């Protein structure tokens, strides 16, 4: 087997606001799984929002999965490939995954393969307890992501 791909799982959101913390919790679940499986090529990270320093954080990775809670009308979860985008959002105190990827390329000349994993959330108030529906979505998303990671490693 050749060199294993360097993979980053990066959750973002605010776990103090109910389902907004879905990305963070999934990241913690993956971290536990990688520890059990002794997978040293998988790194996990998390923050409230993506920001410009994440261009550096993804620059030395082969594959990146950003994980976020979603208000979109989707099934339990959705995964999509991130296309680089120079578009600056309303607030650049947070940034979109496409923006981070574009900045990574402009500064470091690197284009890791980046995916955005949306997990459907429902409530966003100042509470730590996630909704039951979100927890169900989280479990499904976790199982899917594990499969994804295994496939990346097997390539």
């Amino acid at each position, binding site marked *: 087997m050749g060199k294993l791909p360097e993979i980053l799982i990066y959750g*973002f*959101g*605010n*776990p*103090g*606001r109910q389902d*907004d913390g879905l990305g*963070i919790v999934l990241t913690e679940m993956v971290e536990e799984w990688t520890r059990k499986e002794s997978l040293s090529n998988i790194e996990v990270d*998390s*923050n*409230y*929002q993506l*920001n*410009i*320093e994440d*261009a*550096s*954080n993804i620059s030395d990775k082969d594959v990146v999965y950003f994980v*976020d809670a*979603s*208000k979109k009308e989707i099934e339990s979860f959705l995964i999509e490939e991130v296309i680089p985008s*120079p*578009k*600056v*959002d*309303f*607030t*650049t*105190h*947070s940034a*979109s995954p496409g*923006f981070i990827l*574009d*900045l990574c390329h*402009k*500064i470091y000349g690197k284009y890791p393969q980046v995916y955005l994993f949306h997990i459907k959330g429902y409530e*966003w108030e*100042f509470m730590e307890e996630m909704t039951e529906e979100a927890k169900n979505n989280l479990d499904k998303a976790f199982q899917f992501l594990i499969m994804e990671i295994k496939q990346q490693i097997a390539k």
Partner: protein
Amino acid sequence: MGQKITIEPVTRVEGHGKVTIHIDNEGKILQTRLHIVEFRGFERFIQGRPYWEAPVLVQRLCGICPVSHHLAAAKAMDVIVGAGTGEGLTPTGEKMRRLMHYGQMFQSHSLHFFHLASPDLLFGVNGDPAIRNVIGVALEHQDLAVQGVMMRKFGQEIIRATAGKKIHGTGAIPGGINKSLTQEEVDSFLKGDDPLNIDKMISWSKDALKFFKDYHKTHKSIIDEFAEFPSNHLSLVRKDGALDLYHGVLRAVDPEGKIILHDIDYQDYNKYIEEEVRTWSYMKFPYLKEFGKDNGWYTVGPLARMNTAEFIDTPLAQKEFEKFKAYNNGKPSNKSMHMHWARLIEILHSAEKMKELLSDPDIQNGELTTKGTKKPEGVGLIEAPRGTLFHHYKVNNNDQIEMANLIVSTTNNNQPMNNAVNQVATNVMTSQPEITEGMMNAVEVAIRAYDPCLSCATHALGQMPLEITLYNSDDKIIDQKIK
């Protein structure tokens, strides 16, 4: 026919805000207002929770400056557990908190300068909006973009090391801190691989200041005349008058530099400061009671801190402070764009302070907490990146919080931001036949100088456009633009 122009939302500012500008038939500016939706539910939410949870809970307020809320709440809880009012902590407790705070200041200010301010300076207020952003900076000034990214990253790593983690950090607890640093952690910051080490951060901080000063030499009108208006200035200062971002007494000066709030103990802040409610705004308007609503409003933040402090206790920043003071003839600067200059001096000061603290053995060893006789009420103030942040709590006999009052930096700057918008709109929009992209951005530049921050921890992915709506005097939409 009179018109109302709405710029909504203001781009490159956290949260939601909009600007409305009323003009008459001749194009004269009649009224300007900056509308910011401030979330006020948090103070009710925290009622009934055990007081020791507050430093962690308050970080839910904001994903941009959680460290400032974390530390302000911890300082208030120090009072409640009898650990003194900011001066009673153990050396390790206080120094670890300061290191966390300087890390926060360093990363936040760096982000603002490189990401929000430098595009306007490099490409001009009237520059092509397609490149007037950090991607444009990355394309044309890659060195600056890299510096911004790595300075922000360094500050974030300091926060992670001192607060325990990046999200909902637990480092500061009532009466102190819950960890010290290991030798390995200290070495990683002092001697880390280039560029992630403190000496490089200090060097880049100096470079950023040089960049600004060079720009200033050739762009005096925008830096010195843009959104200039007289203001009072308020901040914490150390008891001997030094700049102190973590603790001190509360001082205010008038536009000429006369001290009008005389180094008060901030536990008594509500004897001196009142908050006015206006029907058209969700955000309150604080002012000094003694001078009333019309004359008692004040500015907070980096510029206010330069105007209230008498000196800076780190050598490189002190030299820059002296140049800043000399340029303003020893008087307070009332120039909004000098906010950027002040912010860069604070970046350098924070970097110097981080090196000082990382080199201090107390940061690795010593008692972490202290406590004394419990009190039912405590106030914690801190100089957050955007200005003075107030946290005030009362607890009952069951250790539950029964009252919380927060005055955040952006609220303190409500009136000056409105004044800045009015001044710029009057200058650039009066009698103009149409509202150009450059005019709109001029208004935004004035607001961005204050770096306003809103409760935005719940994010929404997707493009958030700039919406411009034109109303007639009957409040009917006659034009609308989205960019």
